[in-house]
């Protein structure tokens, strides 16, 4: 990806991520989350990961955010009067967050001096990722289906009204 394009997209991504975190209206936060996830999908395309990018749009921007919006509407959440924590905690959180980013940047700067490797043909397309998924990672892949089954049963059991209630 061209560095100029990267910087423009990165600025947009950071802006929409801040909107997710700081906007007072939860619906606007969810919409900003969709924008952030779409922009990340664009980065994935630029990083030769088209399958991951498509999954990102379908699973995250599609399913997960729709779930968020559904719950926000179900709970009928309005703009919050007092959405933030106390000023002291906000200050501590900003300081801690900046310290964390600085630490990560130091570690990253030390690690990332190697030139990019040459890519095999078909890197990141459906065939190559599926081959890895169904050979080397077969056991974890099958375990994710168990995980999803548990999640389905668990969320239905949690969310349904118990007998005698409302």
């Amino acid at each position, binding site marked *: *990806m061209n*560095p100029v394009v*990267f910087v423009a997209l*990165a600025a947009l*991504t*950071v802006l929409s*991520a801040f909107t*997710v*975190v*700081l906007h007072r209206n939860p619906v606007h*936060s*969810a919409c900003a989350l969709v924008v*952030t996830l779409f922009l*990340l999908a664009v*980065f994935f395309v630029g*990083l030769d*990961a088209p399958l*991951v990018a498509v999954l990102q749009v379908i*699973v*995250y921007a599609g*399913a*997960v955010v729709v*779930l*968020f919006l559904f*719950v926000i509407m179900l*709970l009928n*959440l309005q703009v*919050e009067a007092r*959405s*933030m*924590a106390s000023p002291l905690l*906000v200050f501590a*959180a900003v300081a801690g967050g900046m310290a*964390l980013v600085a630490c*990560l940047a130091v570690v*990253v*700067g030390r690690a*990332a001096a*190697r030139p990019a*490797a040459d*890519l*095999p043909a078909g890197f*990141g397309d459906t065939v*190559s*990722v599926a081959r890895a*998924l169904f050979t*080397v*990672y077969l056991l*974890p892949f099958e375990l*994710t289906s168990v*995980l*999803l089954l548990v*999640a*389905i049963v*668990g*969320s239905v059991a*949690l*969310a349904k*009204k118990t007998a005698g*209630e409302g």
Partner: protein
Amino acid sequence: MPTPLAWYLGLSAVLFGIGVLGVLVRRNVIIIFMAIELMLNAVNLAFVAVARSRGSLDGQVIVFFVMTVAAAEAAVGLAIILAMFRNRETTNADELATLRW
């Protein structure tokens, strides 16, 4: 000239920091949840960038697993929020302090 790996990792670190900030600062449990999703996605970006740099597909496969776990987590977490709201009529984390010591 392609974008160096460090830039992607830097963007990933910044997004992760924004997610941490959201979890610490906001009091609405749904927004806290969105901030957690943001952190997971920041890590996904780092995985894909390193996979590209090393020419190895392992990072992309791990992103696949992270997405699966995140989807399961979102479903269960939002069901918990629904159940909590039904019992307590609030999504404010400060008022949901029954378990606080």
